[in-house]
C-alpha cells in the first residue's frame, strides 16, 4: 500500500508542477488576448478581467486591419519563416545524412564545426552580416532575412538530425543500395520518412525564434515593403503614445499562424512516436 500512496503523491506532485508551469507560461498570452478585445480604458482599469458588455471593443483589430500594410507584414513573416524553415530542414537533413552515413577524412571535425553555431549567437556577427548584405545589395529584401535565419537554424538542425540518423538501421540503407536505390533516393525515401519526428522537433525549435525575431528585420529589412509582423506591430508603439489596443490585437493575430504550424508539426511528432519504428 505504501508504494501505491507514494506513487500517487509523486504523480500528484508532478501534475501540480506541470500545471503551475502551464499557468505561468500561458498567463502573458492570455492577458494579451483578453485585453486585445477591450477598450483602452478597460485595459488600464482592470487588466486581468475578461471583457464584458461595457469593456468589449474591437477597436484594436479595426485599427490593425484598417492599416493596409498589415497583411503585407503578415505575408512577409510567413514567407520568411516558411522558406527559412524549408531550407533549414532540407540542408540540415542533407548535411546530417552526409555526416552520419559516410566515412570521410575530417568527418568528426566537420560535425563539430557545424555544431559550433549552437554555442555562438549569430547576433554577434550582426555588423559583419550587415556589411555583407550592403555589399551584395540585399538590404531590405526578404532574401537577406531568409539567408540569415537559415544560417541561424542549421547548427541545431544538423546536430539533432545527425544524432537521429546515426541510430537508423544501417542494414536498411544497404538493402536499398542492393535494390538499386541511388543515394538521393535512400535519403529521400528511406531516411527522411524515418526521421520525421526529429524533423518536426527541429521545425518547432527553428520556427519560433524566426517568427518572433525583431532584431534582424529591424537591421536588415526595415523598409515598408519588407517589414515582418513583429516589426510592423512596432508602429503602434510610439515614443510618447502607444496604441495599446492595436499592439495587443496585432500580437494576438501574430500568434495564429505559428499556432497552426505548431499543430501540424506536433501531429507529425506524435504520429512518428506512436507508429513505432520497425527493426
Amino acid at each position, binding site marked *: 500500500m505504501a508504494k501505491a500512496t507514494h506513487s500517487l503523491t509523486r504523480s500528484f506532485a508532478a501534475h501540480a508542477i506541470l500545471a503551475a508551469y502551464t499557468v505561468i507560461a500561458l498567463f502573458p498570452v492570455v492577458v494579451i488576448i483578453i485585453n486585445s478585445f477591450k477598450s483602452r480604458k478597460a485595459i488600464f482599469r482592470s487588466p486581468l478581467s475578461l471583457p464584458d458588455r461595457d469593456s468589449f471593443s474591437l477597436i484594436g483589430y479595426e485599427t490593425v486591419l484598417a492599416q493596409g500594410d498589415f497583411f503585407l507584414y503578415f505575408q512577409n513573416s510567413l514567407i520568411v519563416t516558411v522558406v527559412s524553415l524549408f531550407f533549414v530542414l532540407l540542408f540540415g537533413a542533407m548535411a546530417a545524412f552526409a555526416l552520419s552515413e559516410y566515412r570521410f577524412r575530417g568527418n568528426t571535425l566537420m560535425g563539430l564545426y557545424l555544431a559550433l553555431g549552437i554555442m555562438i549567437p549569430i547576433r554577434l556577427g550582426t555588423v559583419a552580416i550587415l556589411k555583407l548584405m550592403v555589399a551584395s545589395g540585399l538590404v531590405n529584401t526578404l532574401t537577406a532575412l531568409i539567408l540569415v535565419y537559415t544560417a541561424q537554424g542549421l547548427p541545431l538542425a544538423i546536430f539533432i538530425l545527425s544524432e537521429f540518423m546515426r541510430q537508423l*538501421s544501417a*542494414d*536498411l540503407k*544497404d*538493402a*536499398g*543500395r*542492393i*535494390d*538499386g*536505390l541511388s543515394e538521393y533516393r535512400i535519403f529521400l525515401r*528511406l531516411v527522411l*520518412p*524515418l526521421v520525421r519526428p526529429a524533423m518536426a522537433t527541429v521545425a518547432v525549435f527553428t520556427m519560433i525564434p524566426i517568427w518572433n525575431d525583431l532584431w534582424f528585420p529591424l537591421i536588415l529589412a526595415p523598409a515598408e515593403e519588407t517589414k515582418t509582423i513583429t516589426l510592423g506591430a512596432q508602429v503602434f508603439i510610439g515614443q510618447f503614445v502607444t496604441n495599446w489596443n492595436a499592439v495587443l490585437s496585432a500580437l494576438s493575430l501574430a500568434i495564429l499562424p505559428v499556432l497552426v504550424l505548431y499543430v501540424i508539426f506536433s501531429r507529425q511528432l506524435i504520429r512518428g512516436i506512436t*507508429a*513505432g*519504428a*520497425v*527493426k
Partner: protein
Amino acid sequence: MGSLVLENIRKSFGQVEVLKGIDLEVSDGEFVIFVGPSGCGKSTLLRVIAGLEDATAGAISIDGDAVGHLPPSKRGIAMVFQTYALYPHLSVRNNMALGMKQAGQPADQIAERVAAASKMLSLEEYLERYPAELSGGQRQRVAIGRAVVRNPQLFLFDEPLSNLDAALRVNTRLEIARLHRELGATMIYVTHDQVEAMTLADKIVVLNNGVVEQIGSPMELYNSPANMFVAGFIGSPQMNFIAAERIGRSDAKTVGIRPEHISVDRESGTWAGNVLHAEHLGADTILYMETEAAGLLTVRLFGEHKFNAGDRLYATPDEARIFGFDDAGRSISG
C-alpha cells in the same frame, strides 16, 4: 552462372586490417558458409562481395566478370540481413517489388515474380500487410522473398537466423535448404553458429581474425581439421586438447580428441578420473571428468547412462581418432 572468385581480398578500416588476404573459389550452385567467431570479418567479407564496402586490395569476379567497380545493384546479387531490413513504409508486396521496379522491369513480369516468390515462401496472405504487422519469422521470410524476386546469380545471407527463436530457426534453416535445392542458385551464408554451418553447407570457409583457416566440406573439417582453431571450432562439445608431454607422447605438442571419441568404463581404461558434472540429455550424456593424467576432459556418450558427479571412471580414447598438433597449432597428418 553464379560462380565467384576472390583473389587476395584485403580490407582495412583506418589502421585496422580486418581482412588479410582472402582467396576463395565458389562454383556455380554451391552452398558456401563463412563461419568464425564474432568480429573475425565475416560480415565485412560478405559486404565486400556485395559491393557495400570497397576492398582495399584484391579482385572479385562473379560468373567470370570482374565486378570490383560495379555498384551492388549491378552485381547480380541479393542479400538477406540479420535485422531483416524491410522498408517499414512499404507493404510486403512493394518490399519485394522495389528492386525490380528500380531496374525498370515491366509490371506484369514483376507481378509474376512476386507471386512465384510469395508462393514459394507461403507469403500470399501477407502481401498487403506492412512489416510492422508481421512476426519476426514472417519478416525474415519476406526478406528472403525480396531476395528471391531479384532472381540473383548469387544469394548472400548475413546471419539470417540469429534474431529468431530456436524453433523458428530450425524451420527457417530447412526452408533455406529447400530454397537452395529448388532454385539451384549459388548461396553464401554467414554464421557464427557451427551447427548451422554443418547442416547447410556444401563447403565451409572457416575464418579467424581476417584469414581463412580452412576450406572444406563439413566432414573434411570434422575429420581432418587443418589446425587447432578449426578442430576446436567445429564440433560440439568442443574437442579436448591435452599437452602431449602430459600423456607421454613426443610426436606432437598438443593432442586433440573429440568428446564423442572417448569411451568410459568403471573398471579399467587409459586415464582414471572423477566425474565433476554429468549432463543427461536423453539422446546424449555429457560427462566432465577431472583425470590425473590428462586434466579436464569432456566425454560425450550416446544414449542414457547412469553416471553421476563423484563417480570414479576410466576414460579411453579411440587411438585412431586422436589428432596431433605441432608447436604452431598446425595439424600433423598421421
